[in-house]
């Protein structure tokens, strides 16, 4: 693999690296051109006076968010978070320690909005808003995947994701946006999905899938699009429509619906579960992108909303949809809230509605990667921790051999794949490879000990990220796969 950087070596056990200042100072994603900024309601580029505008915007954001208000005051610099971020562990750059990342923004907030920072800036590390500070922001707030691992370990629950989102929102508001995320959000507004896949192309893809499944199983499994009156509207990340290994997940969902006799449909208008507006922390875009889902459900007259395997989409659906696009009074009273596809599948398995043949996955030794947004920003089922047990229960129902990775690397403490939060772009490949280190370390241990050969996930970003970075760590790229690919393999279908 030709690369301008070295893949970090996996030692025998995880190590907390010593600080190496400036180790990732060169890491910056491509900047969005003006034509990508404007459709999102942002200025095209930095213009004179941006410093003042940025400070004003920061003040507005803080005054509108209790989280920011409390988090910016409360940090005592105890250091509990300093060894928790996968980007710090993988790069050793001290500005990737969560507290230091927060301080990039906190220092500016203090300078303009606190007594101590206004009068004694040197004492509390307060800084003026300058181009140098902005460059630091742009570099390091795009080295945070908003995974919230640090906040699980913070004694005050300070959530670095909130700080990163605020910083990105401030930067966008003065005309400094990130190309990758903003281009994608623009496509969703314009075409309906992240990939810019228009309706006819989507229909074509789904027809192809129907043929593939027919060929493989002899069963007519449908992949409906825009069918009015279907019971379920499935909203899934557009990567599921064509990317590997995602597509096997989509086939899995279709087989589940088929086997259970549930009528379902996809929507061209809402052909995307992802909502990258979350990543850039902009609530106007967040709401606008979410609103498509409500419109599609009302237009098609569907009675249930189900979300496919996508981490941050499930966060938005679980935690924010009710706020942003609720109330869901138009849904079936038995399913009054959006459901995760894993909830649907697990419910059917428990009721005996699916016939599963584990031997179809006999060659697989499976482990499960908890995706950050599912683990730390949402839930499944009726009890706390359902987001951890339900996907594992589904996997166990479909495979003969399942093992978990080390407990400090899964569940609430799961390590990010290294590509979440709007960082899944090739211009950040060094960061992505290095940020994957803690997960790769834990994976290597179960590969060595148990012969794990399948890394299951329920997030489109995780799947793409692992496909890309697994080879850097000497694993085959097709080791990563969808949970519903396992279901799709194991499920016994009748015509």
């Amino acid at each position, binding site marked *: 693999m030709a690369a301008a950087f070295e893949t970090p070596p996996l030692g025998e056990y995880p190590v907390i690296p010593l600080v190496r200042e400036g180790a990732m100072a060169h890491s910056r994603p491509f900047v969005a051109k003006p034509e990508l900024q404007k459709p999102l309601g942002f200025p095209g580029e930095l213009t004179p006076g941006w410093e003042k505008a940025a400070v004003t915007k920061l003040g507005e954001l803080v005054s509108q968010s*209790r989280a920011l208000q409390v988090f910016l005051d409360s940090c005592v610099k105890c250091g509990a978070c300093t060894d928790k971020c996968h980007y710090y562990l993988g790069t050793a750059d001290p500005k990737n320690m969560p507290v230091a990342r927060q301080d990039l923004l906190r220092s500016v907030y203090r300078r303009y909005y606190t007594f101590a920072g206004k009068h004694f800036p040197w004492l509390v590390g307060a800084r003026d808003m300058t181009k140098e500070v902005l460059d630091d922001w742009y570099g390091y707030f795009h080295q945070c995947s908003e995974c919230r691992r640090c*906040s699980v370990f913070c004694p005050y629950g300070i959530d670095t994701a909130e700080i990163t989102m605020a910083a990105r929102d401030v930067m966008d508001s003065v005309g400094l946006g990130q190309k990758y995320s903003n281009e994608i959000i623009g496509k969703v507004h314009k075409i309906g999905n992240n990939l810019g896949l228009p309706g006819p192309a989507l229909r074509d893809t789904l027809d192809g899938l129907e043929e593939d499944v027919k060929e493989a199983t002899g069963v007519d499994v449908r992949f409906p699009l825009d069918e009015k009156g279907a019971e379920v509207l499935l909203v899934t990340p557009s990567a599921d429509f064509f990317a590997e290994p995602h597509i096997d997940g989509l086939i899995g969902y279709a087989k589940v619906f088929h086997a259970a006799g549930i009528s379902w449909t996809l929507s061209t208008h809402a052909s995307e579960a992802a909502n990258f507006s979350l990543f850039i922390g902009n609530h106007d875009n967040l709401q606008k992108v979410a609103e498509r889902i409500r419109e599609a459900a009302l237009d098609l007259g569907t009675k249930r909303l189900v979300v496919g395997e996508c981490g941050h989409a499930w966060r938005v659906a679980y935690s924010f949809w009710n706020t942003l696009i609720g109330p869901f009074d138009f849904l079936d009273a038995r399913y009054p809230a959006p459901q995760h596809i894993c909830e649907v599948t697990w419910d059917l398995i428990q009721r005996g509605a699916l016939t599963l043949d584990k031997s179809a996955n006999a060659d697989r030794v499976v482990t499960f990667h908890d995706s950050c947004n599912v683990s730390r920003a949402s839930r499944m089922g009726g009890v706390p921790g359902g987001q951890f047990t339900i996907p594992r229960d589904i996997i166990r129902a479909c495979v003969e051999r399942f093992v978990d990775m080390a407990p400090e690397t899964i569940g609430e403490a799961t390590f990010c794949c290294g590509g979440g939060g709007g960082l899944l772009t090739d211009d950040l490949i060094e960061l992505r490879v290095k940020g994957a280190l803690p997960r790769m370390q834990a994976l290597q241990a179960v590969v060595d000990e148990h012969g794990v050969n399948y890394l299951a996930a329920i997030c489109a970003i995780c799947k793409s990220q692992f496909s890309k970075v697994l080879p850097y760590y000497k694993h085959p790229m097709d080791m990563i796969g969808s949970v519903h690919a396992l279901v799709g393999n194991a499920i016994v279908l009748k015509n």
Partner: protein
Amino acid sequence: MSALTIAYALLFYAATGILVFGVGWRCWVYARTPQPLKIPIPPAPTTRGGVALRMLLEVTLFRTLFRSNKWIWLFGWTFHAALLLVLLRHLRYFTEPVWFWVDLVQPFGLYAAFAMLAGLGGLWARRFLVDRVRYITSPSDHLMLALLAAIAASGLAMKYVAHTDIVALKAFFLGLMAFDWRPLPADPVLLAHLALVAALMIVFPVSKLLHAPGVFFSPSFNQVDDARERRHTAGWSAQIVRGR
């Protein structure tokens, strides 16, 4: 009435005012600021009772910190628990007659002063010895530790090195509380101790000490994980809804 007594009396009225109104103002700001979205962090309880229990465990046992880092927890919890005992012990200088349980606390409060210093020492040592913590430490972090350590040390000095006229001191504070001023003993260690305490009270509302009220307002901790069951709106998210 000596100038010294007047100066210290005014100092303590001012410090108390700044502490009470300063912290009260911050709390009001926290309470008034809306939290538009649900962002509880796991392990997030699904009931209000669960949230109360979570908060209780956080502020009494520092549960999350224990999970994060055993050294910081050991030093931090020791310091805070000891500080609490010391503060309770000091109630005897502000009450007459002294409440019986304050009497009971006295011997523990005495040992606690040493524990407090030990905890502070551990926390301070980390700021030099752990490179990550050294990187994130600013001058104010050292100053805050210095201030607390100096308060503890000057307090201990009065117990073990140079006793002060504690009866007169108590009369001074009871007098302050009744707006009936009594002379303050002009004892250097005592004056230093009191000045440092007043300084702590004054910086409280403009420093990281705001973590004390802040933790109760932290949405990650105090929100109930029921986003699907109950529709939550506040601030801009409430306005979006009206706009539809």
